[in-house]
């Protein structure tokens, strides 16, 4: 917590401010700009928590401005007044590892809003999460088109005001939110062995509950993506093909810029950043989607640089560093490794089919042989028994 008191003076249409007991000082053309600059200066030297400030005139040309940083969040009730994002568990070096929660987190970080991050570990099958709450206001993800849309509608934060009318922006966003979101969902639940999904969603639930919910979710995802046992391969190809073309389009759109449109962060950047970070960090190294992404180095660089600037700089101890995979990822984009196993998988399935067919023939032959043997033996047994009876009968005579 820090309290910064500044004495402000006006001379020749310019306001200057100097910290009362310290070295900070700045100047600006109006009191409004001066206050904004002073808040930024105070935050840059003590960036913990909420900000309260008050400006009061002493004479028409002098004033006192006080900034209190982080002073009001000791009481639980007051803490609830700040913006709180409830998301899923952090792991793999990400502040939250769920692919739907991460874009919302990145969006709020782009907006430079002071944010509390809380986690819900016990409701993996809820579509209300992630949600943003502040006091009695709550924006759920399953209402009105999502959290980001609700925040814009309710006037809390809107980064898209300039770009919303650009048709390219709209179609790029639609492509990302449909093709890439489907690809991640497929890869997380169906395409990989499920360890990542288990770790993110079910590692805090007791084992029987976690297992049952995981199986339910896999079935739900297959239904959602329209995957059945007949068209599984065709759908997989289609999903990967679409994600490849999406990555290509994004990569050419981005070029060497740091943002997609107008050199400013928008919700499109948040969604793409969330997707790329999730694919790079949370999916296993054998993932095909991940290897496709690594082909586009500018996307990877985009993700890494923004992660360093917006996420790592602001994160506190909420990001665990105990995963061995994170240490590998910090080496830099040039050292991403990927081991796609798609081709060997296809060959194996054909071999497996041949093997299974042969096993079936073998078993059937064995069974027939056993049956023949038993029937013959049964017949010969009867013959033997009759002989014995005759013997006995002879004995009794």
């Amino acid at each position, binding site marked *: 917590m820090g309290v910064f008191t500044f004495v402000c003076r006006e001379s020749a249409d310019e306001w200057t401010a100097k910290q009362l007991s310290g070295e900070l000082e700045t100047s600006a053309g109006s009191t409004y700009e001066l206050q904004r600059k002073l808040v930024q200066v105070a935050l840059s030297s003590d960036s913990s928590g909420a900000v309260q400030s008050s400006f009061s005139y002493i004479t028409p040309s002098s004033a006192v401005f006080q900034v209190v940083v982080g002073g009001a969040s000791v009481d639980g009730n007051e803490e*609830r007044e700040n913006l709180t994002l409830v998301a899923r568990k952090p792991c793999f070096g990400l502040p939250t590892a769920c692919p739907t929660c991460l874009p919302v987190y990145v969006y709020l970080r782009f907006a430079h809003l002071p944010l509390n991050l809380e986690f*819900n570990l016990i409701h993996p099958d809820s579509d209300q999460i992630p949600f943003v*709450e502040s006091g009695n*206001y709550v924006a759920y993800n399953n209402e009105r088109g999502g959290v980001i849309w609700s925040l814009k509608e309710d006037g809390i934060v809107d980064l898209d005001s300039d770009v919303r009318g650009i048709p390219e922006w709209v179609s790029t966003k639609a492509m990302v939110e449909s093709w890439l979101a489907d690809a991640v969902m497929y890869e997380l639940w169906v395409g990989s062995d499920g360890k990542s999904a288990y770790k993110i969603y079910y590692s805090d*639930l*007791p084992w029987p*509950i976690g297992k049952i919910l995981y199986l339910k979710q896999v079935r739900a995802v297959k239904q959602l993506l329209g995957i059945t046992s007949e068209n599984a391969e065709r759908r997989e190809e289609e999903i990967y093909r679409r994600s490849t073309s999406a990555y290509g389009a994004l990569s050419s759109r981005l070029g060497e810029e740091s943002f997609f449109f107008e050199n400013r962060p928008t919700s499109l950047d948040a969604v793409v950043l969330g997707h790329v970070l999730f694919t790079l960090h949370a999916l296993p190294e054998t993932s095909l989607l991940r290897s496709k992404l690594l082909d586009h180095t500018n996307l990877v660089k985009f993700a890494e640089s923004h992660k360093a600037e917006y996420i790592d700089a602001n994160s506190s101890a909420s990001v665990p560093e105990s995963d061995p995979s994170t240490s590998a990822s910090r080496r830099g984009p040039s050292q991403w490794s990927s081991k796609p196993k798609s081709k060997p998988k296809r060959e194996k399935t054909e071999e497996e089919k041949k093997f299974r067919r042969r096993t079936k023939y073998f078993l059937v032959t064995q069974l027939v042989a056993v049956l023949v043997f038993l029937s013959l033996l049964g017949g010969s047994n009867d013959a033997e028994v009759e002989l014995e009876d005759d013997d006995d009968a002879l004995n009794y005579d």
Partner: protein
Amino acid sequence: MPASPDSYPHFGQPGKPIPNIPTPESDDPEDFVEIEEEEETDDFEEEEEPEPMIPDAQMHMDRTRMEALFQRLSSERVPVRVHDVIIKGNTKTKNSLIQSEVEDLLKKATTFQQLLRAAGHANARLQRLDIFESVNITLDTGPPELPGTANVIVEVSESTNPLTGDIGLFSKPKARSWSLEGSLKLKNLFGYGDLWDTSVAYGWGQASEVSAGFSVPKFKAFPTPLTARISLLSQDWLKFSSYKERAFGTSLGLVSSGNHNLSYDLSWRTLTDPSQMSSHTVRRQLGHGLLSALKYTFKIDRRDSPLRPTRGHAFVSTTQIGGLLPDFRSLRFIRQEFDLRYAVPLGFYRAALNVGISSGVVFPWGSGFLNTPSQLPERFFMGGNSSPVCTLGGPTSVLGFKARGLGPAETRRNAEENLNDESSDSSGMDFIGGDLAVTAFADFSFDLPLRMFREAGIHAHAFACTGSLTKLTENAHREFSFQKFRESFRSSAGFGIIVPTKLFRMEVNYCYILKQQEHDRGKTGVQFSFSSPL
């Protein structure tokens, strides 16, 4: 013929079996008659005696002999020993089951009187198994070479139709309310006296349960009856606390004897909020949880009637410990409830003064337990219309307040479209329950002067009750003080009429709220309240 002093031979005489308890012609003590289930008219197996007597004279002699016998049996201590217990008539039921119910009782008897009483007890026990249509216990002479012994023949006839259906009003401790229940029972499927049943229960407005269970009174070496139940329970608290609870689990009754009852619960509990209007506390608790808890109940009820106690006392203590699995992620808490009731008769008009106090506390345990909140379904909620005199289920009822209408409340989410709400009494508050609950009441009941009412069992009462619900977890106990605790008691008083019917017990009360806090839902006025007759 007078009874000879050495009348042992009466029991050991060959060919002269002891007759069954006779028809009430003789002026003998009552207990002789009670043993028999069915009246058997002709039990006198009279062997043809080669005595050339006139039939009239023979009958007269027999009668005097019988009278003398019963005279002896009723006045003197006639020593007798049970030699053998013969069980007849059971095709499906295992011998071991019947033997275990009756043998120890019968073998302990040393005199004839004790034997008769023991036979009566044994009959009652077999009836209580609920698997026989009729039970007959016959006392017979023992083998001729052993004088002074008797054989006991237990003849049972099993129900031909093992399937029975049932509909009734029961009070369900699990759902903490009473409910209408329909059940199908299969009795004695395997011969061990086992009872299999499935039931569907619908509770008062909020709860519904589908369950199946079985119970076996005595299985091989286990000393106490075993029960197991698997159930799917769903409760709807959207109007009161903005959540819906669904629990799927099993419960095993481990020990159930006399005053003690121990059971184990394992269930998967899910809290959801389809209305999406819940308050902060409820939002944080939505999700899945595994409940694994051991529950111990100790109960003494020495009141003369559970529905209208006029004298006696009752004490119940329930302890529940959750989180016993080695898995640290199951819900961990300790819950303790006490109930104390006392009834004092006042002499006139069958009047009685009932006083009672109930209290309960729930607290989590485990690492960081001072900061973790208690589980929402395990907390105490007060309110509702059940009568505190009859229910012994913990601190739940303060008359005059609506269901869950008392205690800590939290504002719900802001609704953007705040049109006229469907539920005008929702007032946007969720009742989130408390960790420490205390209720107390005093009830003065008396008969109405009209004889018509007295015969129907309708009586009147005047009462006063008070209750308090406070939060202790999440560091709220630091701000706890006796001053605040005393101020948190709400109270109400009133009078009313109680109408007991066969299906339920109805009360019509006029309640006046003496003290309530800001968000409580107490209403002064006339109220109806129902409770189950059990």
